[in-house]
């Protein structure tokens, strides 16, 4: 077996493996899990509920899929075996790591329903956050870890993206391609 590719072929005797090239539906519950390490639908729904208070009423209609190690996608259409498509819905959540991390776009799309772990920044801080800057945030008394970062705009609050809160500091984890230097809008 000198051909290195052979090492990548899943062995028939082994458990089914996660294939980073295809979309697979998340199992309904941990008991239905066949692929080691794969998050279940129940755990995903519980996570949004526990972390951000985004209840099942908002997410129950969607299906969830894994492609790549731990990348979970959210989809609202019809699919049975979309294994070989380029994308299905949008990226939603990074699992298979100690602290699950929502995507910026998922937070923008669904974060408006959150009731906790949302930090609302003033106009000046919001602009710095959108530009990708880290900032001190000594007054935060919520959880540590990934937070939804929001600001006031046009008569309401809107989520900007994901922040990582550690030791009185709020790090911007807005991906490079989505950052922007925006003017401070005083309201």
């Amino acid at each position, binding site marked *: 077996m000198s051909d290195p590719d052979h090492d990548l072929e899943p062995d028939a005797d082994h458990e089914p493996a996660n294939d980073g090239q295809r979309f697979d539906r998340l199992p309904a519950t941990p008991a239905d899990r066949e692929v080691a390490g794969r998050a279940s639908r129940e755990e995903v729904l519980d996570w949004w509920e526990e972390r951000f208070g985004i209840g099942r009423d908002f997410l129950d209609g969607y299906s969830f899929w894994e492609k790549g190690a731990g990348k979970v996608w959210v989809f609202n259409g*019809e699919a049975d075996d*979309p294994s070989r*498509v*380029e994308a*299905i819905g949008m990226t939603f959540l990074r699992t298979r790591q100690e602290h699950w991390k929502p995507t910026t*776009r998922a937070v923008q799309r669904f974060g408006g329903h959150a009731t906790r772990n949302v930090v609302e920044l003033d106009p000046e801080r919001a602009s710095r956050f959108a530009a990708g800057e880290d900032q001190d945030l000594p007054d935060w008394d919520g959880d540590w870890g990934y937070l939804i970062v929001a600001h006031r705009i046009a*008569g309401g609050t809107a989520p900007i993206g994901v922040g990582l809160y550690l030791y009185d500091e709020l790090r911007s984890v807005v991906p490079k391609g989505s950052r922007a230097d925006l003017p401070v809008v005083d309201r």
Partner: protein
Amino acid sequence: MNPLDRYETLVDDVDAFRAACDRPLPSVVRTNRIKASPVRVRDAFDEAGVAYDPVDWHDGLFRLPDGNPGGNWPHLHGWTHGQEEVSVLPALALDPQPGERVWDACAAPGSKTTQIADAMDDTGTVVANDNNLGRLSALRHNAERLGVTNAIVTNQDARNFSTKPLAFDEFDRALVDAPCSCEGTCRKNPDVLDEWTLDHVHGVAGIQKGILTRAIQATRAGGTVVYSTCTFAPEENEAVLDHALANEACEVVPFDLPLETAPGVTEWEGEEYDESVTRARRVYPHHNDTGGFFCAKLRVGGPDDHAGETEVAR
């Protein structure tokens, strides 16, 4: 040769046509109602002092006289998408409904896919296909920014598109926003006129016929196919429809667009096309101060086959 010379016999006012083609186009953004209402976008622009003008025929469109459609908060939130005015027409003609199955055959970079998803309230399934993987990555970026969750993205040649990766094998509607010689975009990108060749027109017309044929075949009887281009060339427009009418069970149907248009032409350089192609709409730059465009709506199934027309409940 300037290809626009060819079309002087087709337009009502040659001087106005040529003058409009020489003027640059303003930046325009479309409101993404998946995330915000036009009123909220307007309020955010007001708050930030971003100048905008409404577009009288579409309440979700705003012209930005100072340009820079990406340099403001509504864009960062995915409330807006930069899209030329005429580019919103095909999805209006397609009129996709919530819960349907829709195919966007030539979808990248996704302006119309995301508009279709919006019109479907982000429900049902829109299959966004393109044969160019690099352009598909731009589509994926746009779909994510706008928060579209009902799209499946595929990378196939639309001419022999396979529905195998899908949960169904027929669409309710399909959009063919075809690759073309793009003269209609000359106000944004004057280079298209220098790069234009008749050989390219003939070559791309063959591709267009192949894609439109597949779209008709992949759509259920009674379903809708919209064919659009941003060229004035009848070889790429009415001739493509004429080919579909001759070979597939379909008809060109009348439809309304909310701006001034001219009918499709039935004669061009010695060729004659089916009379019904006059139901297609030509959009000339001088009529509404936009880019140039062509749009036709087809109903799939022969003239006696109206059976599939009732709404499918699912």
